[in-house]
């Protein structure tokens, strides 16, 4: 018994990437990206490819430096993040309660559930033409709509699935201790479906990010330029360093947001459930 406990403890620590393992991971990643960037830069300087089509890392970072100097990049990041956070929040705040409804009521499952399943398969960029027409004088509304369409269905379906897969024994055990109604929902059903909620929220985040970039590239705008617009203008100006730089920024923001938003939840799931999402 003691042996197995110690083993579990070790597995949990290793899984959490504590200490040594974490350093190894960081060093390996830094060396890998350093070598790739170095080879890329060397190739560009040696003239192995056209620097206009494939800008060198130094060109990309020069553009980033200039754009930061002008404040252009910060303001684009801010505008994009504002839209993203707002749309994502709306998607989550609608998706979780609607998912609870479809999990609880057969009627909701047969109607809204089927609708969600259908719209989930539709890439949200497909909403761009219609939303431009619907919100023609309100581009922010159009983009919000597209982001919400990207987030909502994934979150709804994950919530629905999460609630349905709860072992019935949890509900029964909670009932014998006097838990019912809102207490049952808040203290048992939602936490019990947490692994699914987190993976749904993560998927929703990824969809929201993709949809927003598509929306910003396509929707003509007068209410503030986001990263998608910078990308679009870069293409129109044939400024590939700008395009590549904005792509890099999009990657970095997506990566950082993923870590900042979901790592705490994933750590919690690993510590308590002993599982990885």
């Amino acid at each position, binding site marked *: *018994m003691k042996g*197995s*406990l110690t083993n*579990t*403890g070790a597995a*949990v620590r290793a899984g959490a990437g504590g200490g040594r393992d974490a350093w190894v991971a960081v060093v390996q990643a830094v060396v890998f990206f350093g070598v790739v960037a170095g080879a890329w830069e060397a190739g560009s300087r040696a003239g192995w490819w056209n620097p206009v089509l494939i800008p060198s890392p130094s060109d990309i970072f020069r553009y980033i430096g200039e754009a930061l100097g002008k404040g252009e990049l910060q303001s684009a990041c801010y505008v994009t993040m504002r839209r993203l956070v707002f749309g994502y929040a709306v998607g989550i705040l609608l998706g979780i309660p609607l998912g609870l409804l479809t999990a609880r009521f057969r009627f909701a499952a047969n109607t809204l559930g089927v609708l969600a399943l259908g719209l989930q398969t539709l890439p949200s960029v497909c909403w761009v033409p219609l939303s431009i027409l619907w919100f023609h004088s309100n581009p922010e509304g159009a983009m919000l709509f597209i982001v919400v369409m990207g987030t909502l269905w994934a979150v709804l379906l994950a919530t629905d699935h999460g609630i349905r897969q709860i*072992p019935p*024994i*949890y509900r*029964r*055990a*909670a*009932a*014998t*201790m*006097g*838990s019912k109604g809102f*207490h049952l929902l808040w*203290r*048992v059903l939602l*936490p*019990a479906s*947490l692994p699914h909620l987190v993976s749904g929220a993560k998927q929703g985040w990824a969809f929201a990010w993709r949809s927003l970039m598509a929306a910003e590239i396509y929707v003509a705008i007068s209410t503030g330029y986001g990263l998608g617009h910078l990308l679009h203008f870069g293409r129109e100006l044939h400024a590939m360093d700008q395009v590549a730089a904005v792509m890099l920024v999009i990657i970095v923001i997506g990566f950082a947001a993923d870590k900042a938003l979901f790592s705490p939840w994933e750590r919690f799931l690993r*510590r*308590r*459930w*002993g599982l990885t999402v």
Partner: protein
Amino acid sequence: MTIEDELHNAAPAKLTVDRVTKVYRGKRQDVKALDDVSLTVGEGEFVCLLGPSGCGKSTLLNLIAGLEQPDAGTLTADGELIEGPGRQRGVMFQEHALFPWLDVTQNVLFGLNLKPNLSDEDRRGVARAFLEIVGLTPFANSGIHELSGGMKQRVALARALAPNPQVLCMDEPFAALDAMTREQLYDDLQKIQQQRRKTVVFVTHNVREAVCLGDRVLLFTPRPGRIRAEFRIDLPRPRNINDVAVAQLATTITTELKRLLKAENV
């Protein structure tokens, strides 16, 4: 209410099951899980419901717990009709049913948090006391997945006992454990029952287990579920499952069970 009141054992309740019938409606045919079953369990009595699977013993336990409702007949605890689950009747299941999002202490606190008129400090004190009773103080802050099967059932026992129920319903709680862990838990359960006398309804298909733990053993036969025989176990406590007297009595009961099953052609 103070922590002393809370730790002072609640008076165990008297259970009455009066002519209870329970039918499960199936697609092809209905199954009569319990047919006109009556019994009384005295205050602080440890009663084992024994029988092969499908004999309705777990159904009866669920009815007593209030998790299901009978199709006919009534169940009462201290004269009050059992209409739903409630904290006066704690339940332990075959699966530990602990909540993985909570640590060990928080699991024990779950039922306590639903009891009004207690300060948080008192609740924590009660939880600590019960973890001490089941011998898990060093694991108070562990996650459930870090515990062995036997330890999980100990936490489940602490969680069921902590809100101070009058009745403890146990549905084959040790069936999934290895023999050595199980024997340790028989000792612990008897010790706890001596300190904090509860009315216990214990479902099992293990004859020796029933003889080792019960004051009384009720024998069920299936299709439809009925109580067919009753054995009073007067052996001195604490009992050991490997004791000769326990084994002898278990053999007698097994023989009787086989005779009954044969007579009913099942």
